[in-house]
């Protein structure tokens, strides 16, 4: 019983440290691209540690399954959200997400340009 408590407390402490460090990273980084790197630890590593802590504390139980379900949803959704966020920020800044515009001002691709 005591071993379970100690292990779950250690896992929870690691999760809190991950979130605190990532939060400081979000605060201290210069622009949104750099800040976005610190969302992943809080969206993936910390939930995994918390799910492990719940597993250690409660064992394989309905609650543990739902915690892991939330973890799986966050792990699956995270890359899509990050990509969409970077794309939106770049479009706001540059007008287009690509390095160079393929289409000219008329909206047509210039002769010889490859379609991507």
């Amino acid at each position, binding site marked *: 019983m005591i071993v379970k408590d100690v292990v779950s407390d250690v896992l929870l402490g690691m999760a809190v440290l991950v979130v605190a460090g990532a939060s400081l990273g979000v*605060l201290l980084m210069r622009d949104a691209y750099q800040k976005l790197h610190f*969302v992943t630890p809080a969206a993936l590593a910390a939930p995994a540690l918390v799910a492990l802590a719940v597993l250690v504390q409660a064992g394989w139980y309905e609650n543990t399954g739902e*915690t892991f379900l939330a973890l799986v949803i966050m792990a699956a959704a995270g890359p899509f959200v990050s990509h969409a966020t970077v794309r939106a920020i770049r479009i706001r800044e540059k007008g287009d997400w690509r390095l160079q515009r393929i289409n000219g001002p008329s909206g047509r691709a210039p002769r010889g340009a490859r379609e991507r």
Partner: protein
Amino acid sequence: MVMGFVAAAIAMLAAIIPAAIVLCRADVGGSVVAYEFITSVIVIVLALLAQGFQRSGLFELPVLLAVLMYGSSLVFVRAMERWL
């Protein structure tokens, strides 16, 4: 009540204060990133509180918020891309 889980939830709520500062003070892109960060942490906090207070019914809230976080973030960044 499991004290370790409740204490971790409180510590995580305190840990999102720097991200909340970014949410309030940064430009739109930085604010969106801070919003995604805070939403992710709130999912964890809900799971911690559910385990801390030993309420099985409350474990549905983090699952729901994780799903809603995905949809709302995509809608929000699309709106930021076009209109904000």
